[in-house]
């Protein structure tokens, strides 16, 4: 136990001096996904079971919505007298429109009835407020496997951990939730923009790979056709805003219901998809992929992902692996103006602070770009391209 804690601690201090690791683009790695219910329920799988995308792993029921009925007010009686007029008691099952309380006066000349607004159970009767709370019927909640693979752990009453061998690509930003489909290259090169002409009727259910960006018309046509997901390098701010119907305020996404999942790999504006990402996706054309656009940048960074299960490569690398940091030769991508999107290799990492154009003294590094130029950029403005 203590040894484990020490090992953890060592890893932490190592990371303290490392730089922000880039997004993962891996040909083969072991992926594990924990599929968990929001509250305890029943788990349907056992260790060693093989599961597919749609298989239900666990199921539960969450308590229904409560409905507040102002019974005393409706009957015209004082709250403290309410219990006398209740036909149903706490714990009783009631059907919609079934009478739960009644008031008769003047030998039946005045009759008042209060029906239940929903199917449910009487949860409470208050003699202070004169309110009755009817609890609605439970709502079932299911969790599917999301990725095909093997159940490696069962979390009793909560869910299961699924493991698979797959290619794994992280995007920088996405919208829309979990889905899956067959990978199809919609463009010929990472520089090419994905326009509506590229989208065909036969693309229904596919994961379409674009190049430098996707146009608004293309997104709309993709929804019409029934495309599952679009993966591209960039998208214009104006287009994504129009497509979702509102400005994105903070980067917490995944719940949009816009008809497809969108994954952006580089950033906003027209941005050539990184050659590595493009080539990797191309080599898996025709494979089924599980994708998720959910993005959350603050607290527990969550990036959109493309998981392509396969059994062809077995080189192992762990998802928990920590970046070793930057050294001369490390491939990097510049992620801010004036060289945004440029790819290169670290040439040197000067120790001293340097004054940049803004007059700030910052730690910098020299990068040799693909075109041979050597430029100096703040260390905060590059990300490592993980090999």
């Amino acid at each position: 136990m203590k040894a484990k804690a020490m090992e953890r601690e060592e890893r932490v201090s190592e990371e303290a001096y490392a730089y922000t690791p880039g997004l993962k683009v891996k040909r083969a790695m072991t992926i594990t996904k924990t599929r968990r219910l929001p509250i305890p329920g029943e788990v349907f799988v056992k260790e060693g079971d093989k599961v597919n995308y749609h298989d239900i792993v666990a199921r539960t029921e969450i308590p229904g919505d409560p409905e507040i009925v102002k019974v005393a007010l409706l009957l015209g009686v004082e709250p403290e007298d309410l219990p006398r007029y209740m036909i149903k008691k706490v714990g009783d099952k009631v059907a919609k429109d079934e009478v739960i309380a009644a008031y008769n006066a003047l030998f039946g000349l005045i009759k008042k009835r209060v029906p239940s607004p929903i199917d449910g159970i009487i949860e409470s009767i208050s003699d202070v407020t004169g309110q009755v709370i009817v609890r609605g019927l439970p709502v079932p909640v299911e969790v599917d496997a999301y990725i095909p693979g093997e159940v490696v752990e069962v979390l009793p009453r909560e869910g299961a951990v699924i493991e698979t061998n797959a290619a794994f690509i992280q995007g920088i930003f996405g919208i829309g939730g979990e889905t899956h489909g067959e990978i199809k290259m919609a463009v010929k090169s990472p520089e090419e923009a994905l326009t509506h002409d590229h989208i065909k009727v036969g693309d229904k259910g596919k994961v379409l790979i674009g190049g430098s960006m996707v146009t608004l018309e293309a997104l709309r046509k993709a929804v019409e056709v029934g495309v599952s997901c679009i993966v591209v390098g960039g998208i214009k701010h104006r287009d994504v805003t129009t497509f979702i119907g509102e400005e994105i305020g903070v980067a917490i996404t995944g719940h949009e219901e816009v008809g497809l999942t969108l994954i952006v790999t580089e950033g906003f504006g027209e941005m050539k998809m990184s050659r590595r990402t493009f080539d990797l996706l191309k080599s898996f054309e025709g494979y089924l992929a599980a994708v998720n656009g959910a993005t959350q940048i603050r607290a527990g960074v969550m990036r959109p992902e493309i998981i392509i299960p396969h059994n062809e490569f077995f080189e192992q690398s762990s998802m928990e692996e920590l970046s070793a940091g930057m050294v001369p030769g490390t491939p990097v991508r510049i992620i801010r103006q004036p060289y945004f999107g440029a790819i290169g290799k670290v040439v040197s990492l000067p120790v001293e602070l340097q004054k940049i154009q803004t007059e700030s003294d910052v730690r910098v590094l020299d990068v040799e770009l693909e075109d041979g130029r050597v430029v100096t950029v703040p260390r905060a403005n590059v990300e490592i391209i993980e090999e």
Partner: protein
Amino acid sequence: MVTLRKPKEEMRYILATDVGSTTTKARFFSNESGEWRFVIAGEAPTTVEAPYEDVTLGVRNAVREVEELTGHRILAPDGSGIVVPYDGKIGVDLYCTTSSAGGGLQMMVAGLIKTMTAESANRAALGAGAIVMDVIARDDGRQPYQKIQRIRSLRPDMILLAGGTDGGATAHVVEIAELIKAAGPKPRLGAGYQLPIVYAGNKALQPQIEKLMGSEFALTLVDNIRPVLEVENTEPARRAIHELFMEHVMSHAPGYTKLMKWTDVPIMPTPAGEGMAMQLIASVYKENVLGVGLGGATTNVYSVVDGRFVRSVSANLGMSYSVTNVMKSAGLPNIVRWLPFKIDEEEVANRLMNKMIRPTTIPQTLEDLIVEHAVAREALRLGLEHHKTIATRLKGIQVQRTISDMFEQELEETYIKMMIIDIIAGTGGLLSHAPRRIQSMFILTDAFQPEGVTKMFQDSVFMMPHLGVLSTVYREAAWNIFDKDCLVRLGTVIAPAGVGKLGDPVMTVELEMPDGEILKEEVKFGEIKRINLPERQDANAVITPQRGFDVGMGPGHKLEKKVMGGVAGVLLDGRGRPLQLPEDEGLRKELLVKWWQAIELYPMDELKELI
């Protein structure tokens, strides 16, 4: 009551940390020659998330950096934590910490009437350093089922329930309590414990509330937040929130049980520490303070006006994670109006979106820096607007009106008037990292538009929360460090309120400088001047505004006042209040460049290349 391990006069070393959502910041202080001073800072990534899930690892790493930089050992060799007190070789005499990791303190508040008890409850929760997720009230315009759905979807750390004056409303208050109980909210940090609820409503209802909620929630009963309509008493609720924060919230966050054992001083939410620091400034100077913490995700605004402390938090106004939300709330044209060069609005939008998804990047070009500064002005402006909706006079009280009030449209709700603010203090990454100090002074001036004579401060190294929590147990040490090493005196802004025509005279300012020299400056409308007056030096000023312009004594009336020097000097701002940028694009850009040139805001050669 906190028991210190050593008498104050024998203390030599103090360590304070702030466990932030991304970085844990350690600050080390020492008393070498009878005076408490800041020594060094150490920082490390916060380790609240998987795979670490133990904040003390990040604290240890930050402290280790302090050890490496100073050679002074603080951590116990056996890994048991921080050694307290200092034994002559190792350790510190006092360790305290603030925390906002894992989302800080997230609360839901409820009251009877939106503008009365619910508003008071909101102020109490904010003042305690919480992020208020929602305010539920009987008249908030939502149907009961909508409120229930909302409460069910929230997972707060705590609920503050108010309602009714003492001996006042009863049934309606219980109704709100029944609604909360029916919704059955679950605590954010796991379902294994009871959700804490503080009841600060009608005292007569305490037994009924106890009966209704006592078995399902961790209920604490405190004095009414509005015992009578005319009085707001937030202190008992605030104290209960802090206690519950330690007992119920922090103890369920990863690693905090351990951290709580390391410190003798209760762990405080970061904004509460920052608020203490702002109150410290107000109490030492005995003046009204407007403070702001402009962060990456949120903007906190604090005011201390006539002794009344109010905090507001704009949870989604910030310079990195929330930068696009500033764009969404302010609108792109409002950001672009602060730029003197031609740039496509869509290009600005794309850049801000890219900053949001890569929040740790920094501007490399002057153009990019100026764009960020434009966003900062808007974030601050919106943050202050929001603050004004929280810092309001108590509603529900009959206000005596004079004949002259009758002619005014409506009695203004907020009591925050820039003319009565004597001090503006700023903190946060963008302000402290501004390459020239005049930039943070000018950004604050453009955004808050101080009126009259206003002292401007900012923090040197981020340590206001640290000193805030320290001030709760050792005020003298905290103030000395604050004064000497934390507060940077930017200078003073002299800005008459009023509007005129470009080029018309606005005021004359006569300054008797520390060396006896008399400087006389005439300021015209639309003009701005900067006078050098170093930090820790004062000048006697005689300010004579023109008719229609006011510096605090009424329109056209002279003011004699001592003005404080600073690293950015004294700014004579003749641009008028409210500050209006010309509609005409050409004139607007011309004026911006003229102002910037007059005060040497940016390197001019590079700026000219952009225009």
